[in-house]
């Protein structure tokens, strides 16, 4: 069997590449860094990279027709050959030396010159336009400059303009796309900078864990494919590839196309692109934190009993709580902790994520330790040397207030430390640490972290959380 068409050869290479991709994720180096860190529960450390065994990359002679690869479905073949002309790779280059610093994917919308991609693919260009510039490469290897028009940090979308027009294959219509669970979706992009590829998977509903709606795509999305389109078998764009869970298998996420529609309208309506995207991103982050804190405090925090204490938590689809205990440790005290955190954060740059809330309570108890021994134990647990990384230059150094405070039913030692974002005016990170001071054999230690909130909202949430700490009536 001969495969004369260039597109099919590329397809074969792409399929082989996507197989190797899973294990090459770590080896791909620089090109790989765009991987959007998977949303994680805070107590779980994500596995660094998938499998340890690295099969050798297929040599030129090994990707022939005799290789044991699954035969791509005819739908994928058809789709890829029809879509390849409008599929682009988006690269971020250092202005100085034009070496590439990250890569992603994108696609031409309709017959215009607008390209849809992820914000995190172009974030360097948006944040530091003096240092980075962008470039596209199409499936024929031709390249050209890109111009950033609009970003939507919250949904992780961006619109750029290129110097060529689309063929009209990818249509982003005004109507929302109707999807049925289990329906085939085809995800296109350039995984790990190895070559353009199409991967097949299925649609599995809307994820409720993230703050903003995302679609679950059960299929492989690798770094480098971010910003590429996911289409139905009929070629209708359903979403934009955005991320995957590194602790799972084939658990990937798409941005629903309806958010892209809004952003495209905005991009084509504006007379000229903004000169500096930083204030714009700051405004979007401010809007996010308003919604976030409003939702957090929409109703009074729910109270849970932990030993003799009442602690506030908020458990919802976005905020997941996890418990832990040291009951097996050979120690003269017990620690029970509950920790609630949002599993998703807003990606600003590869070193900065924000718009995040987490809260932790731990109750230390001991009947056998002397009060002084217990005091030393509680003090060492209450000690935090630095709030976030001390050398983090994107934030100011922490300013802290500390006081012995009496809530309605509980005396606590309260500490609040705040750091301001240097680039985004009006945004702060709040950390509240509180420890009960009412018992010589028990200690409740609570912590609330709010990343990327306004001062007012930070104070509001801090106050609500602190006031809710209490002692249960006996």
């Amino acid at each position, binding site marked *: 069997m001969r495969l004369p068409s260039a597109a099919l050869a590329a397809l074969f290479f792409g399929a082989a590449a996507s197989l190797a991709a899973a294990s090459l994720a770590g080896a791909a180096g620089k090109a790989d860094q765009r991987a959007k860190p998977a949303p994680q529960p805070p107590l779980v450390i994500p596995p660094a990279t998938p499998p340890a065994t690295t099969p050798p990359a297929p040599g030129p002679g090994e990707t022939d027709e005799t290789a044991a690869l699954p035969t791509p479905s005819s739908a994928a073949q058809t789709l890829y050959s029809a879509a390849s002309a409008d599929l682009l790779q988006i690269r971020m280059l250092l202005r100085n030396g034009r070496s590439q610093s990250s890569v992603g994917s994108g696609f031409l919308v309709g017959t215009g010159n607008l390209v849809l991609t992820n914000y995190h693919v172009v974030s360097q260009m948006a944040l530091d336009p003096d240092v980075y510039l962008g470039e596209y490469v199409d499936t024929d290897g031709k390249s050209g400059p890109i111009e950033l028009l609009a970003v939507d940090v919250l949904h992780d979308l961006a619109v750029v303009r290129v110097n060529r027009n689309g063929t009209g294959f990818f249509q982003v219509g005004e109507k929302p796309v109707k999807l049925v669970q289990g329906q085939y979706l085809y995800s296109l992009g350039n995984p790990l900078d190895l070559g353009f590829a199409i991967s097949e998977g299925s649609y599995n509903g809307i994820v409720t864990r993230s703050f903003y709606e995302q679609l679950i795509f059960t299929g492989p999305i690798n770094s480098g494919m971010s910003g590429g389109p996911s289409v139905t078998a009929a070629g209708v764009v359903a979403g934009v590839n955005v991320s995957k869970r590194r602790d799972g298998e084939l658990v990937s996420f798409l941005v629903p196309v309806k958010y892209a529609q809004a952003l495209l309208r905005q991009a084509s309506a504006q007379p000229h692109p903004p000169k500096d995207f930083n204030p714009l991103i700051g405004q979007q982050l401010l809007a996010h934190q308003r919604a976030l804190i409003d939702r957090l405090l929409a109703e009074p925090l729910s109270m849970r009993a932990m030993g003799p204490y009442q602690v506030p938590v908020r458990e919802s689809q976005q905020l997941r709580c996890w418990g832990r205990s040291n009951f097996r440790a*050979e*120690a*003269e*005290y017990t620690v029970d902790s509950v920790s609630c955190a949002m599993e998703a954060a807003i990606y600003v740059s590869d070193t900065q994520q924000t718009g995040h809330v987490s809260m932790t309570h731990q109750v230390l108890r*001991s009947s056998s*330790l002397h*009060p*002084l*021994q*217990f*005091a*030393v*134990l509680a*003090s*060492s647990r*209450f*000690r*935090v*040397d*630095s*709030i976030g990384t*001390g050398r983090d*230059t994107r934030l*100011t*150094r*922490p*300013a*802290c*207030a*500390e*006081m*012995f*405070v*009496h*809530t309605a039913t509980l*005396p606590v*030692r*309260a*500490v*609040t*430390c*705040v*750091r*301001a974002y*240097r680039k985004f*005016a009006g945004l*702060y990170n709040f950390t509240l*640490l509180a*420890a009960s*001071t*009412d*018992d*010589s054999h028990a*200690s409740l230690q609570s912590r609330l972290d709010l990343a990327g909130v306004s*001062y007012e909202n930070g*104070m509001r949430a*801090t*106050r609500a959380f*602190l*006031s809710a700490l209490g002692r249960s009536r006996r």
Partner: protein
Amino acid sequence: MNGPWFVELLARNGDVLHRQRVDGLPIRIGRGYDNDVILDDDYAAAAHAVVEQDASGRLLLHDLGTRNGIVIQGKRRQDAELTGGTVVRIGHTALRVRAADFPVVPELLDRTLHGWEGVLPAAAGLALAGGVALLARWLSDTEYFQLARYAEALAGGLAAALLWGGIWACANRLFARHARLGRHVFVFGCGAAALAGYALLGSTLGYALSAEGFTHYASHVATVLLAGMIYFHLCTIRPRNRIRYRWVCAGLAVLCSGLILAGNVQRTGRLSDELYMSVLMPPAIRVSPDHGVDEFMRDVEAMKGPLDRSRGRKPGDDEIND
């Protein structure tokens, strides 16, 4: 001036290394064996100098035409008058000549407690050091009781006391006549007890009175206590220089405190040692009243101004808060 005369060979710090009595003048000094005072110094001539009395009774030193000559206060001389205090350098040897009637200063008043030497202070010091080590172990022990852990702590404390005391005893033997190990171990024991005492007292006061300064700046108290310890070690070696050591140790303490402050500002942008007071104590210790949540939130609100001002500055250039 009348004989007999004493020729004293001196160390650089003025101590007498060797004293030789000479009954009559002239005194011949040199490397040769026909001298009255024989110098084991390769830079002294066989017949180097001679001490004589002139008509008016003054004691004079003459150079006997040598290559290296005689040097007084850095100047080479052919002849020199010797009063009791004149120190002459011949080659690499410093010496002075004193007559038997040279007046000496009155004796010092002996304040030393001679009963507090040797085993007694050593035992007290070891007991203190061991006690502090055991206390620290006990306070931080949250596991089930195991004798070995306490034995380890005790051994560690005693070893530290002996090591530290031993180093100072070596210095003592070197610069004074006796080792006085017992005294040095006792100084260490007291120092360790004082440091542990402050750690507890400072935390207690800070917690009881809501006075965070006691723990925010604890490193400076530790510096002062350490300087005090060094002062007592130095005084044990040479009690005469008490006043001078007082100044030296005070200077040392100020220097260290300054370095700690500068280091804190550089590293964390604040003067204090810690972000906040993390001490938690039994509730019975609290003395000062608790505040309301509103008052706390007002404090939090007050931080906004400085934070916003820091925002506009370069990283590392933030306002120093305290």
